[in-house]
């Protein structure tokens, strides 16, 4: 019931909100979607997204019942792989909406011209610092922090510098930035923290200290991290998320209210995930309605325990596990978006040569 009320409130808010873009074209589209809700009834849209996408059935069903729109979800792997597939199929897109492109990959999608602009009326209810595209081709949905995690039973980590010390010999496992968006976020964090001139020195020191590199988050966390559920990991420090502790607690058997996973509040990278309308869709009104739904309070409050991310809506309440177990990093690294776009490929190349070469 609470969710239904939240949804009604969200819809009411959305209708009265005013897009604050200076661009007139997207605003015209925004009003079209608000008034054209009848025309979308019976339509099916396809959401292209990464494997981590999740929504509670009843929340999605409420959207479909209200709008008459059926949502078909296509999951294409890691966020990077999803964006690459979207670029590859640009001429005949696989879907109408793409969710999951983050701020490390953003320029790739924008440069390829994947998205049509849209200003959701609900955007005004979100933290506007996450709104990174002046042309509104993408809309922020959630944020989370890529941080160093550790096994509290075995060790304590207080800064990235610690990891160079002898006591962390053969203790750290990270993800390859070329194959994992988590790894890429951490690489960017080290560039920001140690500077363009010194970050490779840091990585060489990690290499000398026995860092293990895995292809993806699941291998690093499940197989190599000592608290990973495989139970065979030998690494007590892993690059994961500030929200790993609540995930660890919620998915324990049986669920618990504490966690042995610690998260370091140093060198965290704030990952913002976006949604956008794929260019070439013939269901733009329905696509807009879906984006409005992703910004609705119902969806935003459902996200934390589904995807372990924070809402971008300022009025969305957090579940208790998040307030008790996940300390939001106070000082994530600050990297200008254009610096990431300009250097992403170079950083990956240089990192590969330094760490894997």
């Amino acid at each position, binding site marked *: 019931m609470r969710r239904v009320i939240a949804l009604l409130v969200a819809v009411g808010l959305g209708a009265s909100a005013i897009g604050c873009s200076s661009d007139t074209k997207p605003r015209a589209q925004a009003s079209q979607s608000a008034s054209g809700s009848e025309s979308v009834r019976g339509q099916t849209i*396809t959401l292209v997204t990464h*494997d*981590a*996408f*999740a*929504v*509670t*059935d*009843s929340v999605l069903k409420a959207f479909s019942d209200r709008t008459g729109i059926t949502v*078909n*979800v*296509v*999951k*294409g*792997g*890691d966020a*990077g*792989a999803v964006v*690459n*597939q979207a*670029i*590859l*199929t640009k001429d*005949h897109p*696989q879907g109408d909406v793409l969710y999951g492109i983050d701020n490390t990959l953003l320029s790739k999608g924008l440069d390829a011209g994947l998205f049509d602009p849209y200003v959701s009326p609900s955007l005004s209810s979100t933290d506007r610092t996450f709104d990174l595209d002046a042309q509104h081709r993408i809309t922020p949905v959630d944020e989370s922090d890529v941080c160093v995690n550790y096994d509290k039973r075995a060790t304590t980590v207080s800064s990235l510098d610690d990891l160079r010390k002898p006591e962390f010999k053969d203790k750290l496992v990270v993800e*390859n930035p*070329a*194959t994992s968006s988590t790894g890429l976020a951490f690489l960017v964090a080290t560039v920001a923290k140690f500077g363009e001139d010194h970050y490779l020195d840091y990585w060489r020191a990690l290499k000398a200290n026995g860092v*293990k*590199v*895995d*292809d993806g*988050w*699941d*291998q690093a*966390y*499940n*197989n190599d991290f000592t608290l*990973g*559920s*495989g*139970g*065979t*990991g*030998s690494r007590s420090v892993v690059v*994961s998320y500030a929200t*790993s502790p609540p*995930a*660890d607690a*919620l*998915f*324990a*058997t049986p*669920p618990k209210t504490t966690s042995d996973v610690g998260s370091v509040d140093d060198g965290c990278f704030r990952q913002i995930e976006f949604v956008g309308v794929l260019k070439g869709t013939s269901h733009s009104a329905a696509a807009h309605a879906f984006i409005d739904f992703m910004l609705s309070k119902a969806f935003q409050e459902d996200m934390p*325990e*589904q*995807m*372990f991310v924070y809402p971008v809506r300022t009025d969305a309440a957090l579940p208790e596990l998040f307030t008790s177990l996940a300390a939001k990093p106070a000082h994530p690294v600050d990297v200008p978006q254009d610096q990431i776009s300009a250097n992403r490929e170079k950083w990956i190349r240089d990192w590969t040569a330094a760490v*894997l070469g």
Partner: protein
Amino acid sequence: MTRRTRGRGAAAVALLAGVPVVFLAVFFVWPVGHIVERGLRPNGSWDLGVVGAVLRAPSTRHLVWFTLWQAAASTLLTLALGLPGAYVVARFDFRGKALLRAAITVPFVLPTIVVASAFLGLFGTRGIFAGVVDLDGSIWAILIAHAFFNYAVVVRTVGGLWSHLDPTLDDAARTLGASRWRTLREVTWPLLRSAVASAAAIVFLFSFTSFGVVLVLGGQRYATLEVAIKRATLDRLDLPTASVLALVQLAAVVALLLSFAATSSRRGVRQRLLATGDVARRPRGRAEHWFVAANLAVMAVLLGTPIAVLVERSLHPTTGYGLDFYRALFDTPARAARFVPPLDAIRNSLEFAVVATAIALVVGGLAAFAVAGRGRGRRPLDLLLMLPLGTSAVTVGFGFLISLDRPPLDLRSSWIIVPIAHSLVAIPFVVRILVPVVRSIDDRLHEAAALLGASPARTWREVDLPIVRRAALVAAGFAFAISLGEFGATLFIARPDRPTMPVAIFRFLSQAGAANFGAAMAMSTILMVVTAAAILLIERFRTPGLGEF
């Protein structure tokens, strides 16, 4: 008579070959050609400079060399372990043999990421054998994992033919004073050679194009061409490099297959095939009992322990043992909404597997008769059929994405695309399993049938079909198992509303928390049980077949 047979053969081959050729042209050659073209002709003009650049890069040479030697080593290891196993399964009767035959096929279908996790649990730094061996990041972990996956290929392909060989040939040789070794070398080997070569070719190809095993167990140290193609395509969208590497892999595979064809150009020896019931017997004497026991021990250690680790973990929540993970799979609280309902995943997997098996049997069966015949096109056809095994799943999957996206073949949103992708992998197995059997059919049976006035169709139905039926069932079992476990191509084209069991396992593994990992292990165990049950069921249907003549 011979001339007449040949003339009829050519026409029949053309007819038989038509279906597989069209199928492969549409669902393999065109999509793969399309994606390679996209890489080499980015802006409407061919850019062949990149070919030279990639080929000259030292990293490419390393890749090719590593890919080759690890595949050769894996094949030798698998044959060394598998051939004695094939003999045991073919020649001896013992309790639980049917179950064993099904059980050894189970590893073949397991998702590589799950198996890699089990191997780390055994041989990793904190594994069960920690202190004895630490194979984490070692080449042995990769080789043993390849043997684990491919053991069944050797036992079933070679054992399939071996179980039909007439043991009186051996007895005759022994009676004439030949040693056991000489009998094996001079009597059995010539008869078995084509099946061994077939199995070796498949194991080599599988290891050559190995992806998941090398990705997880090889870490950043070892990479095959397949892994490099995946990284270039999926992670970097560096299509030019991906295309060149895909062509290198394809060229290597073609070269391998051609040399395989050249060495095994002598056909399988025409021989009298017997029903297995006449061949297998209980082990006699101490040596035979030891031999059987030793092979069962190899199977138990190589195949049994990793599976046992998986099952153990699926039953092992934080406190004691229990079915918690299985229960969690089946009740779906709100917070588990991201999960694939397990019954749906099982049903999807089974439905896809049935369709994929049907496609593979029809296309592969027609192709097997064409390849085993004497038409001129049989060599190229044989080669074409094997190519999907040598092509990266990422290349095929991405090829599907950009080439089957508009009418008349707008299949990207259709479920049929999944079983089609599965059948591409299964067809070569069907062909490889059927060809030696078809070739072994004694031509005199055809001649006798023709002499008695039977039409070619009737001859086929009443002579050829009964003989190949059993092999076809073995092939069906393989195709079914391949479809159940196929993950590579499914990942890129899985219909959203129809996730398969391997896809569900993968999704569980991409979330933190013991419950998710346990759910993945429980789902893996269910996948193993479903596979074993399916194979057992298929073998149940097998008719006395060969015993009829």
